[in-house]
């Protein structure tokens, strides 16, 4: 199919979301904060546009990678110091009682 015609058809079918708009709306989409109408239009565009499907996949891949990014452990001396302070604190209050809840 003539690409121009395809794009015209796509814009018509997809209720005028351009690929650029799709890219900008991805986080709203993933957070579930699109309105029902926008969500439907978003899905329609994705159904017709492999590039945006791939881009959404890339964003999901990025998020998943971030989720698995391991933190650096804290230095041992910092930990030792904290445990030391913890012991001092504990000695100061031998019988930890639940204080009234203030917030």
């Amino acid at each position, binding site marked *: 199919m003539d690409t121009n015609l395809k794009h015209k058809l796509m814009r018509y079918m997809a209720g005028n979301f351009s690929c650029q708009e799709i890219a*900008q709306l991805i986080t709203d989409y993933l957070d579930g904060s699109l309105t029902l109408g926008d969500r439907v239009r978003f899905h329609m565009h994705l159904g017709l546009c492999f590039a945006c499907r791939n881009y959404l996949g*890339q964003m999901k*891949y*990025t998020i998943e990678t971030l989720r*698995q990014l391991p933190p650096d452990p804290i*230095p041992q001396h910092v*930990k030792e110091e*904290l445990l030391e302070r913890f012991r001092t604190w504990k000695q100061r209050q031998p019988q930890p*009682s639940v204080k009234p809840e203030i917030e």
Partner: protein
Amino acid sequence: MPAYFHLLAPCVGLEGWLCSVRFLFRPPLIVPVRLRIILLFGFDVSLTFQRLPISPSSLTLLDRVKLDELGLVRALQAGDEQVFSAVMDWYSGSLMRLALSFVPSRAVAEEVVQETWMGVFESIHRFERRSSFQTWLFRILTNRAKTRGIRESRYQPVGLSASLGDTDEGPSLEDSLFVTEGSRMGHWKDPPDVWEPDTPERVLLSKECRATIEQAIESLPATQRQVIILRDIEGVGSEEVCNILEISETNQRVLLHRARTRVRRELSPYIQGDNT
């Protein structure tokens, strides 16, 4: 209202695996999900199996404590040193990463993390479980880090930096990916490919790749960095993040989107270059 409530989560299932069932009002953001049934429009039930970050044989009593938050909080309230030491191992790295986004140096960040733990043992008795332990911890850290950041005078309060536009003004990163004029306006200049040469786990095995992502995050404006750390790296929900950082829901989403777009761009040559 929280976006989801745990029904049976977490409970220890098979050795070395964490099995949880969640009822969600929205589809889950990240998909560690193996089995997911969509019941009604907008509702789904998901059964998740996550591999624990420890080997099955070392699944000690302490590891189980982490999975049971009520137990964890009670043990801390009772002053259990063993539990406290384990909790520090679990969370200090995450706290450090977040602290670094508020203060100018590693040394100061270390102090902030220490102050946070001091705050924890001083106020654990007042912990009401209105939020998760993790969220509560991040909130303590944020408060200390902000105070500290102001003292170090390099940190701009969140509201101020956002209104000055270091975060949500100006052209967005993805604009450069699109045709900006003519009949193809709004279309991809170069349509994105599928990224599935490798799983994120395997990609992260490479030190170079990890460093690239860490650097991308470090180079973000402070608030974007804080949002992406909390939302994507730590997996805190959007409402809680707004609460911790004292920003609006909309602002939070804009910041998160910008940060993700940036990280995707940095990750991109790495994944594509690796496999073509």
